[in-house]
């Protein structure tokens, strides 16, 4: 505490103001009655009402949610498989290429990922729509999932799994009953990460979609290209609220789980001592 000074307090205050003020301003202006987005004309929820009456937005939201659910679920399965290959499969032919293909998409500019996938889909004559966006999102988010899961797997004590095998579990049972519960937090955060990456993606979806499927980010981008729109302010507020509620709930749950675990461990220590 010795070094906590006015300087530190000021940089924290200014820093967090910078991070959060733009979003606060956006939320405030979403309740503005005026169509001129920069003039305050009293409190109103009319933009929310208009948003929910706009069929195009509702359709786009539905497309986005479906894409996110499918791609993040497939990405979680593939990413967890890839993570166990990275951590446990040992040496095999083509391992360097494999880990290269896991890490490269993380640093690849989105415009290049999008362009290359579009050229592939055209090359093999695949009709572009929800299906192709799911393929594209699965591919880049499985790499994020495998990074998250492999860091957890690396610290995992393999003797637990071996004990299960000795006690008569099949390898799949050992995975389901022992390994999966232990790495579950990493798998869940991998899924959440994949889900938000998919919800948020504009560039790759724009390249890989066809006329039949418009996602929410594509809709938002085309609406705000020419300037601020009050409907988008309302939509943004809803999305910010969902994220805030989700993150706060998740952190409360993990905090409670940690407290329970600590209590159980203490009880176990008392019982054995």
């Amino acid at each position: 505490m010795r070094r906590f000074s006015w300087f530190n307090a000021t940089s924290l205050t200014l820093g967090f103001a910078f991070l959060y003020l733009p979003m606060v301003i956006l939320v405030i202006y979403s309740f503005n009655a005026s169509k001129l987005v920069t003039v305050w004309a009293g409190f109103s929820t009319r933009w929310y009402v208009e948003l929910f009456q706009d069929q195009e937005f509702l359709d786009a939201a539905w497309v986005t949610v479906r894409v996110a659910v499918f791609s993040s679920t497939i990405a979680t399965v593939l990413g967890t498989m890839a993570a166990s290959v990275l951590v446990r499969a040992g040496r095999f032919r083509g391992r360097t290429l494999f880990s290269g293909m896991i890490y490269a998409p993380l640093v690849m500019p989105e415009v290049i990922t999008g362009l290359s996938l579009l050229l592939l889909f055209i090359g093999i004559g695949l009709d572009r729509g929800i299906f192709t966006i799911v393929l594209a999102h699965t591919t880049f988010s499985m790499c994020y999932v495998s990074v998250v899961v492999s860091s957890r797997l690396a610290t995992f004590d393999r003797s637990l799994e071996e004990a299960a095998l000795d006690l008569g579990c099949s390898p799949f049972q050992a995975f389901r009953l022992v390994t999966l519960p232990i790495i579950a937090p990493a798998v869940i955060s991998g899924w959440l990460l994949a889900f938000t990456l998919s919800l948020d993606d504009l560039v790759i979806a724009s390249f890989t979609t066809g006329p039949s499927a418009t996602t929410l980010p594509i809709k938002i981008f085309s609406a705000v290209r020419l300037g601020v729109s009050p409907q988008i302010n309302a939509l943004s507020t809803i999305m910010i609220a969902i994220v805030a509620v989700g993150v706060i709930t998740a952190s409360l749950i993990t905090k409670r789980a940690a407290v329970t675990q600590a209590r159980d461990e203490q009880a176990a220590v008392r019982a054995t001592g």
Partner: protein
Amino acid sequence: MRRLVLIAVPYIWLLALFLVPFIIVLKISLSDIALAIPPYTPTLDLSGGWSAIRDFFGALDFENFVFLTTDDLYWRAYLSSLRIAAISTLITLAIGYPIAYAMARSAPEWRPTLLMLVILPFWTSFLIRVYSWMGILSSEGVLNQFLIGIGLIDTPLQILSTNIAVYIGIVYTYLPFMILPIYATLEKMDESLLEAAEDLGCSRLSAFWLVTIPLSKGGIIAGCFLVFIPAIGEFVIPSLLGGSDTLMIGKVLWEEFFSNRDWPVASAVAIVLLLILIVPIVLFQRNEQKAREAEG
């Protein structure tokens, strides 16, 4: 057998949807634009046998790459992307370091909350965070209203649609990437080293320069790369906040593809962008490797 399936499924997925598309980009970058579907030539026709394959490779050339060097739009766009990314990285460091430092020096019971406040924006839509600045920076925006309101300026400043807005957008969206690695190194630092330096006659400021900064070098380098690398290929920020004179290569590639429909040139732009990115990515990997070795 089980092991083979476990390796094969993700492997084949990545080969088909990462490596093959990339090879297609490489191939199209060597092709010529054509008024056809698909709009480039040559296309590989395997039914033609060996002579068709030979003709196919014979028709590939580096013309598009030569074109990139002759039209100064492209190399100016590459240079300007690098410059914008570098300047924004330095600004992000200047803003992010004091925040990370203050977080690491705050009371331990506060740190998880502060950390969550830094991570929370990650989960919020990137597009919306960039968009939120449009309402602030526009000529009738919140910032100009405020500055006119307190009498600092008479006429609104033109910030939106300039490079300044692009800098603000990059700094804002990538700030957590800078704060987190620096915080991680500063938090591990042993504070008794500073006391030792002061006991040995260092002033507080020189102790900071001679002890704290060198010890957090790993975090600074990691943070800078984490901002610099994605900023180079950025598309959303320059197209929403930048103006018509904002040149960034991600935007050029997008327009080349969607507006000009010149797929071979767009592919060549992508290949050169990747070649440029390899240098910072390799340097970043080396920095991470060093950090891991220092720990292990």
